[in-house]
């Protein structure tokens, strides 16, 4: 098996190399991807750079003039699902995805260049737990790569939108789906999988971007006998439905040639039925991009009963001279790890209310569980904080390296009433293994926070009645952009947290803002379109007055 992969890879590398060298108009080379952050006229990697800092050096739009920010154009995605797509930009063309289409737009005018429609079986949405969404694409060598809800990986010609290849990852009927934006690392197209609440066995996969051939698959739950299997002590077949999905895009450090990818919660939620730590669920993995081999792992929530995925984005930074990765985990702690070896450097609590653990032991790297956690595992009814939404849900944070500040949309004081029950497995049906209900706070449910990553100290906070589920963008113009579920696209002073500007986009925002430059002018783009996990699961009726309907909005200063 291994041997085969290596042989195939040898073949592949030459083909990719050939394409890159051909120097086609649309060729994005590996170097371009690596240096994404240094060229603001393009956005070639998910998270605005392989390190996913979502920080731009552009400062034409800044805290002094942001009041003059106004729409330049809007483009209708003709879709009423929640929109979470991360826009890509290359050579003046913007690429946006929805669950059923990919579009290429003229970035300056918003005019459609092509639209490529995706069809999938009508039954697929059954297995999409948290919204019929798509989070974006990867671009490389003149091609755009994306995943489909029914778990296919496809490549489109960036010039025409025509499908170049399509590879089925797995049968969606067993509960697998794909919403993740794939990524390119060391010439390999890497993707994850969703389905953590359907009793799947999670994995990551590497594909040949040229042919669509699968190069490797690394399961996040080991089979008996494989390394890590000793942490599944049930002695039965829990591992087969053990969870560990990989539904958010990983980061890549080209210097260390390492991909970092977070895995989701173990399944079912009933942790008592799967004694042991349950590797590699709720874990940060460091992998070798060419083979998918795991270099090191760090588990944030061993034997997790609370749906505490560790899938959240892994932001690369250099702090105090150390190469680190940072993650605002669902479980309420902010992890800073040495990314060369996985050593835990800091793990401050980044929200106010956490009651399942008193902290993370820096010596052992393990959480110090409270009675809430132990009771939950033995089937007692508990109220735990933060809820399954997490201290932070999927919506990505931003990191300003100049001020060493992280900007995060957090959930405020939202907890969950919880009781583990016997799960019933049926392919393609929820496999919760728990009864649950929300425990809402009396006041605001969300807070945008500016924090110090090493200490968790809060520099400023802006609370909101409804939690924000949009991504955050930081710019050198002393600005932080994000959006509200009620539709406002907002700008804050990055230093003080003062709300400087907002614009009602007409539908809720759960997308990911980006900024870019063209011909000496700075633009800010965000995709709106209410829906997805909070709208679906919270039952928050205040959202009834926010219509669905996705648009790509692009803003610039009024001249």
């Amino acid at each position, binding site marked *: 098996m291994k041997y085969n992969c290596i042989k195939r890879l040898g073949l592949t590398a030459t083909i990719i190399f050939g394409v890159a060298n051909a120097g086609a108009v649309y060729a994005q080379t590996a170097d371009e991807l690596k240096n994404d952050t240094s060229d603001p006229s393009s956005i070639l990697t998910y998270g605005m750079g392989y390190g996913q800092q979502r920080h731009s050096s552009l400062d034409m739009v800044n805290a002094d003039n942001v009041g003059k920010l106004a729409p330049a154009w809007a483009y209708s995605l003709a879709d*009423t*699902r929640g929109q979470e797509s991360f826009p890509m930009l290359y050579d003046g063309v913007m690429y946006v995805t929805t669950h059923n289409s990919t579009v290429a737009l003229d970035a300056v005018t918003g005019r459609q260049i092509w639209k490529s429609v995706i069809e999938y079986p*009508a*039954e*697929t*949405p*059954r297995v*999409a*737990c*948290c919204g*019929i969404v798509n989070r974006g694409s990867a671009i490389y060598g003149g091609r755009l790569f994306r995943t489909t809800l029914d778990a296919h990986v496809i490549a489109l010609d960036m010039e025409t939108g025509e499908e170049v290849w399509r590879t089925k990852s797995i049968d969606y009927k067993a509960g697998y789906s794909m919403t993740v934006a794939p990524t390119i690392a060391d010439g390999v197209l890497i993707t994850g999988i969703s389905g953590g609440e359907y009793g799947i066995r999670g994995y990551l996969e590497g594909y040949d971007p040229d042919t669509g051939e699968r190069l490797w698959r690394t399961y996040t739950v080991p089979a008996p006998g494989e390394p890590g299997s000793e942490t599944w002590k049930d002695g039965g077949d829990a591992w087969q439905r053990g969870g560990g999905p990989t539904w958010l895009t990983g980061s890549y450090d080209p210097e260390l040639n390492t991909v970092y990818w977070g895995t989701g919660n173990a399944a079912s939620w009933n942790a008592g039925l799967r004694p042991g730590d349950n590797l590699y669920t709720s874990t940060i993995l460091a992998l070798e991009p060419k083979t998918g081999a795991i270099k090191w792992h760090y588990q944030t929530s061993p034997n997790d009963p609370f749906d505490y995925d560790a899938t959240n984005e892994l932001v690369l930074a250099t702090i105090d001279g150390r190469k680190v990765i940072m993650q605002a985990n669902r479980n309420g702690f902010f992890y800073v790890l040495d990314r060369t070896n996985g050593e835990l450097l800091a793990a401050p609590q980044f929200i106010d209310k956490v009651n399942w653990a008193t902290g993370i032991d820096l010596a052992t790297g393990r959480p110090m569980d409270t009675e809430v956690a132990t009771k939950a595992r033995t089937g007692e*009814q508990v109220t735990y904080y933060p809820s399954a939404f997490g201290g932070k849900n999927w919506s990505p944070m931003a990191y300003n390296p100049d001020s060493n500040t992280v900007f995060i949309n957090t959930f405020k004081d939202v907890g969950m*009433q919880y*009781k583990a029950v016997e799960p019933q497995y*049926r392919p*393609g*049906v*929820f496999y*919760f293994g728990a*009864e*649950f*209900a*929300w*425990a*809402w706070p*009396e006041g605001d449910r969300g807070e945008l926070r500016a924090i110090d990553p090493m200490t968790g100290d809060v520099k400023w906070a802006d609370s909101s009645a409804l939690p924000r589920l949009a991504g955050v963008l930081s710019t050198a113009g002393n600005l932080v952009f994000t959006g509200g579920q009620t539709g406002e696209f907002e700008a804050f002073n990055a230093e003080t947290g003062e709300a400087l500007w907002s614009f009602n986009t007409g539908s809720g925002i759960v997308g990911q803002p980006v900024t870019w430059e063209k011909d000496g002018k700075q633009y800010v783009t965000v995709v709106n379109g*209410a*829906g997805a996990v909070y*709208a*679906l*699961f*919270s*039952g*928050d*009726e*205040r*959202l*009834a007055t*926010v*219509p*669905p309907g996705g648009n790509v909005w692009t803003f610039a200063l009024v001249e």
Partner: protein
Amino acid sequence: MLIRLAASLCFLALFGAPVFAEDFDLTKAKRTYKDFCSHCHGIDMVNPGTSSYDLRKFPADQKDRFYTSVNKGRGDMPAWGDILLPDELDLLWKYVVTRGGKEPLPKEEAAVPATDTDQTQQHGSLTTKPGTLTACLAKNGGVMSSRRAKGGAGLDYALVTALADQMGLALEVEWFESEQEEESTPIRELYALLAYNVCDVMPGFALYETSLSAFYKTRAALPRYDNKPAHLGPEFQVDLEPISVSDPYARMEMGVVYRTPEFEREITQIADMEGLKIGVEQGTLAGVLTLRQGTSKMVADSITANPGPDFLWKMEQGAFDAALVTVGAYDFHKKQNFVSTLALDEYRHPIGFNLSVAMLKSRRDLLDQIDPTINAMIADGRMAALAKKNKVTFSSPKEPWVQSNLTMEDILLRR
């Protein structure tokens, strides 16, 4: 404050005692809703209503629409018919019309739920419809039952007519089509029809040990039947329930059929057919017995063919000379083919199945009238006469009434 109240109400409903749940299993309904529907329609059906339908507003008088939309899907909603079990769909409907157990079931729901087996008590009658005995019969039941423009034919049809008569009830027949698919065996169809209250009684139940117990607590699809409601798709499955059976009224046996008198032999066991070209009915008990109890030479030269009416037709055309088949199959062949060179030997294989009338256990009081009627009809020769009239080679029931599960020995022992 309002929100808090709502949240704590939800919580109560989740863990606490249901308020209006006497009529159905609210806890199960809630879980089913959560597992299948909550990720679009919101936990406890609370959703902003902006992209998925607000189920709290679903009209309580549009049950058919609910079943159709959920089974087949609608607009952006996927279809669920192939994955939901029937009781789950029913529970979801009740969950939705009671607004999650917060309101009582509408009157008509509580009174005639589709699978409520207690209706008998409510009507003070042992049958679904007072004054009427409803029987399920297969349209394609060969010499035992077949549909006619008016009424029907066959021994089973004659039997239920006689039973209804004796009980002073009108007879209504629900004609169904026995599906020939692999997964659906006639026995499961029978259980499903009874459990879904399509009819009160069903003749033709072969008394075999497993058939009497094995299917309880499992589910099965309904075969097609004339009055099957449109909203029940082929995916629809029924929760099976325990049944009761009458005293046997006839016996299904296997015998040797040969072609033209020249192939006739003195037969006391299957191996006696040696020297003849033997047909083996694939996948049937008769076929298995032929292979296991025939001599090796016989088996080596045998011809295997698919079961069904074509089997004997192949023999008629000379494909083989003799075969072990059920006597009913021979009767049907003779009935369909006036000119035939096939004849039935007197030999009967010792393995046979007594036939009885099946009904839900909750209707077993019907047996007080059915059993004496059957026994009288056998005793005074009426049963045999009815069989003859319907071109059925009649065998009276034999002890033991219920054939015990076949063992390897039963199958291997030459007889």
